[in-house]
């Protein structure tokens, strides 16, 4: 019996490692940071540039982080001297192209910040893409420039 368990385990361990590897996105994130906000603020924004080196367009469809209840993709529209926030279901990164998420425009919102955010110096963020892959990034928390 013990031998069987060992044999099955030997097959399972590489299989799980393979699953993790296949789930890793080819999308690259550069220059990531999260905006520092007052302690009374429940939300903040993360910014980075997403690069797609593949031949297929891939969309960012969401994400999660242990420091926030929800992670969403947002944009800001500037029109007639007014700023308006728009919630996006997805954000396409063209094949061999890039999309910059930057202040006053596209950004990833961390909504419902938890206590762990207040003490943190950086945030771990998992980004989810339309091809079912994920990208884990670590973004420092810093004051916006």
């Amino acid at each position, binding site marked *: 019996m013990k031998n069987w368990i060992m044999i099955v385990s030997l097959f399972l361990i590489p299989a799980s490692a393979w699953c993790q590897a296949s789930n890793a996105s080819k999308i690259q994130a550069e220059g990531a940071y999260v905006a520092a906000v007052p*302690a009374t*603020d429940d939300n903040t924004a993360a910014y980075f540039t997403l690069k797609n080196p593949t031949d297929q367009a891939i969309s960012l469809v969401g994400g999660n982080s242990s420091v926030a*209840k929800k992670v969403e993709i947002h944009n800001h529209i500037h029109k007639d*001297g007014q700023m308006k*926030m728009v*919630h996006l279901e997805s954000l396409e990164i063209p094949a061999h192209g890039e999309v910059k998420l930057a202040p006053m425009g596209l950004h990833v*919102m961390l909504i419902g910040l938890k206590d762990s955010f207040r003490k943190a110096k950086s945030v771990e963020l998992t980004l989810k893409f339309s091809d079912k892959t994920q990208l884990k990034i670590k973004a420092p928390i810093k004051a*916006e*420039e």
Partner: protein
Amino acid sequence: MRKELKIKNWILPLSIGAGILFAGGLYWFARQSTQAPTIGGDFTLHSTRGPVSLHDFKGRPVVLYFGYTSCPDVCPLSMSKLSRVVAQLPEAVRKNLELVFVSVDYRKDTPEKAQNYVSFFFKGAQAVGLTGSKEEIDRVVSLFKTGYVIEDVPTSALGYSIQHPSDFFLIDKRGKFSALLPTEESNEELKKGLESIL
């Protein structure tokens, strides 16, 4: 004959006078109709230390901003940018400048939340957070010929969003509106704008 002459003598100056008055009236009317509506005026809203009016800051330049504390991106960035520019000003000037943050989120923000918000961004500068009832905020927004819209966003966990002005309103030492300064301006342009009211 003499009487007729007397009347004739009056006709010319009278006509000239009437002409001047008519032209003046036309000029005044044209000016009134082409002049932009007056922006600004005194108002009173609520702070952590009680009611605060714009005239309380007379003798000091004011930077006025309309936003809300749950604002996800634009307000923190605008406050952060402004605080960096203000920090570059000489100390004496910086201490004379008043930064007024008006939260238009009358449903969720309180004077305490508004004050905590500005205090986070402005250290070593006079900054006050204000808010009020819908009617009070609507009056201030209307005085400054701007607007805001609270929209429900059911698809987002935020639940709502507020469309609000993207400019700083500069007010001179006399309490008069001086200029609009777009928040997306470079730090150098923001500094120049601030210097224009110092």
